[in-house]
């Protein structure tokens, strides 16, 4: 485990797919162990690009990303996978593997050249499946289970990597309300109970505000605001981020306000 609280830290990130087309400008962010950080912003604000930079898939034009005290670019794919896991927006499996086999693939970076699973690998992936409640359909294929179940399988696969940081790319965008809540509660547990740094890119302001420990609001490739939901959630920030009129409805019990756009 890392000594530092701040497992993943990006500073002054800039990125462009084509010269002059700035997708990220001077983005700085910090993800701490034990915290759920939600990255909010409208379409095209650079959320996914930021995530891909943090994953090491895209190389930033400027700025640094430090993971566990070391530059991200210095990690091999294998050593990176032991620290950092990723859950995609749409779970897919081109080959007809069972859920159990898919979760075991999360052990790739921990196994030998043939990827053969040891007792420990089996135990870790079983624990990941217990946590995500996916054991009941362990022998079914991804095409035979629902979207919410498939997303939980992808989270189980990420957990099997035993990472310090888990990155999720809009994991609830295609799920119904019940499954959205399930996935958000799961992310909170990963952060609070499993002490991971969880970073979730999201569109859903209300869910993010309700569950996140930290929010990062982006617009046009820049960080508009960051901090706790209480600090970030104000009319001005949200209106300028999403370009709509927003009311904050304060619930009678004094909890997190509900955001209503119109």
């Amino acid at each position: 485990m890392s000594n530092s609280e701040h497992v993943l830290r990006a500073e002054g990130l800039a990125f462009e797919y084509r010269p002059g087309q700035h997708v990220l400008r001077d983005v700085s962010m910090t993800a701490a162990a034990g915290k759920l950080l939600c990255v909010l912003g409208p379409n095209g604000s650079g959320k996914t690009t930021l995530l891909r930079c943090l994953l090491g898939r895209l190389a930033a034009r400027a700025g640094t990303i430090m993971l566990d005290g070391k530059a991200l670019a210095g990690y091999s794919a294998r050593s990176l996978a032991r620290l950092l896991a990723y859950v995609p927006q749409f779970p897919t499996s081109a080959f007809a593997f069972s859920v159990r086999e898919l979760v075991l693939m999360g052990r790739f970076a921990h196994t030998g050249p043939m990827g053969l699973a040891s007792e420990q690998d089996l135990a870790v992936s079983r624990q990941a499946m217990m946590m995500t409640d996916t054991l009941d359909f362990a022998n079914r294929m991804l095409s035979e289970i629902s979207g919410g179940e498939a997303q939980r399988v992808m989270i189980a696969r990420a957990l099997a990597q035993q990472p310090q940081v888990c990155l999720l790319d809009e994991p609830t965008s295609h799920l119904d309300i019940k499954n959205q809540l399930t996935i958000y509660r799961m992310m909170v547990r990963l952060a609070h109970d499993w002490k991971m740094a969880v970073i979730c890119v999201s569109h859903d302001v209300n869910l993010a505000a309700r569950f996140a420990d930290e929010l990062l609001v982006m617009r046009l490739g820049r960080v508009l605001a960051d901090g706790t939901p209480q600090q970030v959630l104000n009319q001005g920030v949200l209106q300028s981020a999403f370009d709509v009129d927003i009311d904050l409805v304060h619930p009678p019990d004094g909890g997190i306000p509900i955001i209503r756009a119109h």
Partner: protein
Amino acid sequence: MTDQPLDNHAALSLTGLARMTFILATASLGVAVLCGLVGQVGLTWNTFSARFLRLTAAATVGAALASGGMALQGLLRNPLAEPYILGISSGAGVGVLLGLAIAAKAALPNWAMTPVMALAGAAATCGVVYGIAQRRGRLDPYVLLLSGVIVNAFNGAIMLSIFLLVPPRTIARFAVWAMGGVSEALAITNIPLLSGCAVAAVACWALLVFRGAALNTLGLGDEVAGSVGVPVHRLRVEVFALVSVMTAAAVMLAGPIGFLGLIVPHICRLILGPDHRKLAIVSGFGGAIFLMLADTLCRLAGGWLRIGEVPVGILTALCGGPFFIYLLRKRLGGVKS
């Protein structure tokens, strides 16, 4: 629910893979001996050993093409990918013919030119086909097949142009070679080529087996595969390089033999499921056994029909063409519904 048996079910063990390899190797050897014995009455040691060399060539070609096809299907997530269909075989073929033509003109020994040219042809074709089909690292499965069609046509044109440049007697020899078949004469007279190709093919096959776990993760998409620790770009280069060497070896020994890399891996997938570690082992042996049997059938059929010998490439194409259409229809139907 009971989890223990499920865990065992999912776990692939080294002893299991070793046992599988041993059984299949024994079976392949058995098939080779049986195939060597059938035919002619009054079998002498000389004819048997000549046939055995020929069967070694057939087994090498079959193992190389089938395990290479399996690897391409996994790498490109496309059940229709195969060295022949993607034009890699014809690329190696152009290399072989150019090598022979140049060696004849420059009075060089064949071995100095053909291996290098065949490998260059196969590797260049891999690069071109992949370059056409990918956009920002993403592959369109149908563009991939179409680029294979285009490259095949182009390579075919180059081969025909080479025919124009060589004397008529050589054209006949080249034309028979282009049908694809295991030549007994080549296997007996050119032991260095046979053993070189066999060693190269087996070494690449073994390396492919060790890429099986990485190929499995590619099914989750490039991004997820990368995030579980697979260096996706390096894997692509490695597998294309291995398949180029294997295809070049196969084409040098037997000319372009089509569809083997499609039929054998597909049957293996049906029986064994999607795990590329098992598939890499089994499809290699399956290809070796398949081509030994097919070659023996062609040898016998030639005798029955009194036309000398039927090139085995004709048989595999006759079986493989309809099989390709069946797979394509199944895939199209699956996509639409």
